[in-house]
C-alpha cells in the first residue's frame, strides 16, 4: 500500500507570495509550450516516486475492516513485510492472522514494473505453496474492496500519466493526475490521483472501471512521517461507489529498516511463518 508518499518544494511566504506566484505562472506558461500535460503528469509521478525512494524495508501490523452496504463489519488481521527492490517492483509478504480459518496463510508478491507480478499463496492446511495467476489482479483481495493490483507497489512503468488540473483537497493544494494502466489486464480504465503539492503524497484516488464508470474512491488519511522522510497513511479508506461496500485498511504499527532481505521473501521459508 504505497499510495501515499511524497512532497514538494515549499511555497514562498506572504510578501513574496504574489511575486513568486507571478513568476511561477510565467514559468508555467513558458513550460506549457515545452511541457505537455503528459510530461507534467509524468514529472509529478516521478517526483512522487523519487520522494519515496530509500525506505529499505518495513514490517507492519494491519487490520482490514470490511463493511457491507448495511454497515455490517468483518475484520481481517494481518502482518505485512515489504522490501524495496532497486530497478524493479518491491517484494511483499502478507501473513494472515484473522479470519482464524486462514490463519497462517501467506501471500507472497513480487511486484514488477512491466510484466505481471509474481504471486504465491502458502496454504498451511496442505503445507503447499501455490503459484497464483496474477492476471487475476482485478479480483478482490481477501473479499475486500481492495483488488490485488491495489496492493501492488507504485511503479512509474505501470501507468501513462497526464496532468489534469490543480485542485484543493481537504484544504491542501493538489495536482490532479490521470493514470491510465499500461497492463490490459488491469481492472481499471483510469485512476485520478490527487497528489498534494507540499509532500507529493497521494491523498485521494478515484478508480474508473473498464467501462469508464466511477467504481471506487480511496482516501489516504492520518499521515505519519517516518525516518524524517517517508509519509505513510495510518488509515486508508476504499469506498465502492457501485455497491456501497467499503474497506478500511488500518495500520496499527509500522517499523522501517528492520533488516529484512531477500531470504525473508523466499517461498521455501513460508512454511515457517506463524
Amino acid at each position, binding site marked *: 500500500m504505497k499510495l501515499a508518499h511524497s512532497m514538494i518544494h515549499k511555497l514562498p511566504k506572504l510578501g513574496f507570495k504574489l511575486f513568486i506566484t507571478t513568476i511561477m505562472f510565467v514559468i508555467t506558461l513558458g513550460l506549457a509550450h515545452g511541457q505537455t500535460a503528459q510530461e507534467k503528469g509524468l514529472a509529478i509521478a516521478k517526483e512522487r516516486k523519487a520522494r519515496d525512494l530509500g525506505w529499505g524495508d518495513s514490517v507492519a501490523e494491519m487490520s482490514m475492516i470490511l463493511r457491507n452496504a448495511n454497515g455490517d463489519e468483518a475484520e481481517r488481521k494481518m502482518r505485512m513485510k515489504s522490501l524495496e527492490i532497486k530497478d524493479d517492483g518491491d517484494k511483499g509478504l502478507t501473513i494472515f492472522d484473522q479470519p482464524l*480459518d486462514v490463519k497462517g496463510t501467506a501471500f507472497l508478491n513480487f511486484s514488477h514494473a512491466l510484466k505481471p507480478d509474481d504471486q504465491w499463496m502458502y496454504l498451511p492446511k496442505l503445507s503447499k505453496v501455490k503459484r497464483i495467476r496474477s492476471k487475476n489482479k482485478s479480483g478482490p483481495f481477501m*473479499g475486500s474492496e481492495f483488488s490485488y493490483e491495489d496492493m501492488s507497489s507504485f511503479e512509474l512503468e505501470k501507468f501513462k500519466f497526464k496532468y489534469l488540473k490543480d485542485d484543493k483537497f481537504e484544504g491542501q493544494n493538489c495536482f490532479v493526475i490521470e493514470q491510465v494502466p499500461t497492463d490490459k489486464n488491469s481492472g481499471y480504465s483510469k485512476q485520478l490521483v490527487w497528489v498534494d503539492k507540499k509532500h507529493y503524497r497521494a491523498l485521494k484516488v478515484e478508480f474508473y472501471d473498464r467501462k469508464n464508470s466511477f467504481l471506487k474512491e480511496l482516501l489516504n488519511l492520518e499521515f505519519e512521517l517516518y525516518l524524517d522522510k517517508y509519509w505513510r497513511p495510518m488509515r486508508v479508506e476504499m469506498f465502492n461507489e457501485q455497491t456501497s461496500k467499503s474497506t478500511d485498511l488500518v495500520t496499527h504499527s509500522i517499523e522501517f529498516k528492520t533488516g529484512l532481505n531477500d531470504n525473508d521473501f523466499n517461498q521455501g521459508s513460508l512454511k515457517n511463518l506463524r
Partner: protein
Amino acid sequence: MQDMNLVIKGHKLKKLISLLAVVPCLVFAEVKYSGNAGVEQRYFLQEALYPQQERSNISAYFSPEVFTSFNNGSDSILFKGYFRIDQQDSERTHGDIREFKWTHSGEEWEVQAGIGKVFWGQVESLHLVDVINQTDAIEAVDGEDKLGQPMVSFSLFKDWGNTTIFALPYFRERTFSGVDGRFRGPIPVDTDNPIFESEDKEQNLDWAARWQRSIGDWEVGLSYFDGTSREPTFVVAPNVDGDISVRPLYPQMQQVGIDVLALLGGWIVKFEGVQRNVFEQDNSVLINGVPVTFEQQDYFAAVAGFEYSFVGLFDSVYDINLLMEYQYDDRKELATSVAQNDLMVGTRFVLNDVDGTEILMGVVQDLDYSNVRSGFIEASSRLNDHWKWRVDAWFFSSDEPMEPSHLIRRDDFAQFSLEYYF
C-alpha cells in the same frame, strides 16, 4: 592441576552464563496457541455391502497447534496434534502428531528435525510426486490428509533454486477402515500385521531430495525418493490366528519425480510425472515365514492438466476456474492403481465474498470402463470469525469388479461439518 580445575570451572561458568542468557529468551518467547475442531455428520446414500456397516455416522476431531520462536526468530518449535473420535469405526478413532519439529534458519539455509509435513507437486486430482508423508486414508476419501513423518531435513535457498535433503528414519503405515467402517473390501485391511520388504521393517532409513525453482512464469520441481513405498500392495494370507486376512505389503521403492506449473496467458498448465522402481529384483519377502519373491515393477505414471479462470464473471466479483486433468499409469494389467487412464473435469466457484465461500465440484471418469466414475462436491463458507460450515459429497459408480473402486461402489455419501477455529 588446580589451574586445570579453574579452567574447567571457568568453562562451566561460561556455559552456565550462556545458558542463563538463553533462558530469558525461552521464557519470554511468545507462545502462540491456535487450532481447530469440528463435528461431521455423514450420511450414506445406499444400503451398505456388509452387515457391520451403518448408514449414518457422526465423528468429531480436535487439532491444537502450539508455536514458539526464539533467538530472534532463527529458531522455532511447532507442535500440531490431531485426534478424531468416530461413532462407528474404532479404527477411525485415532490420534496423530501431525507436526512436532524444531526449525533452525540461517542465512539461505535451514535445518528441521522432528515430525514434519511436506507437500510436493502441482496438480489437484492425484498426488504422485508427493511421497514423503503417509496418507491418513481413513480421514477422507480424497487422500489429502497426511500422517506426521519423522524426519531430519536440510535446505539451501539459493538463486538457482531451493534444495532440500531429507533423512526419514521411521515409516508410518497407512490407515484403513475397520470392520465397522465404510470404504473397505469384504475383509478389512489387517493393519496390525503389515509386511515389509525391508528387513528393517518400519525402521528402514529412507531418504529423499528435492530441488524447486521459480523461473519467470514457470515453477519447476525435481525430486528423488529411495525407501519404503507409502503405497502398499495387498497380500491375502492367513494371519497368526489362522484367519484369512488382507495384509498391507510395503515394498522398497525408488522414485524420480518431476512437477511443473506454467502460467501461459489465461491458462495454468500443470504436469507431474514419476518413474518408479518397486521391489528389489530377486529380493524375497517373508510371508508367514515363507519367502515369496515379487516381480520387480518399473513403471511410469503421470498427471497432466490445466486450469482456466474466468475472473469477474458477468461483471460480478465471482471467479470460475475450470480444471481438467488426465491421469496415466503404464501398469496396464495391475489394477492397484485407480488412476491408469482417467480424466478429471472440475470447476471451482469462488464467490470472493466476506465469508470466503467456495464450491468445488468434479467428475473423474475412467476412460477404460465407461461405467466407472466418481463425482465430488466440496463447498465451504464462514459463519463468523470462529465458525465455518462445510459440505462434502462423493458419488461412486463402478460395475467393474477388477477396478479398486468396485469395493466402494455403494459408499456414496454426503457429509455436513461444522468447524471451530481458535
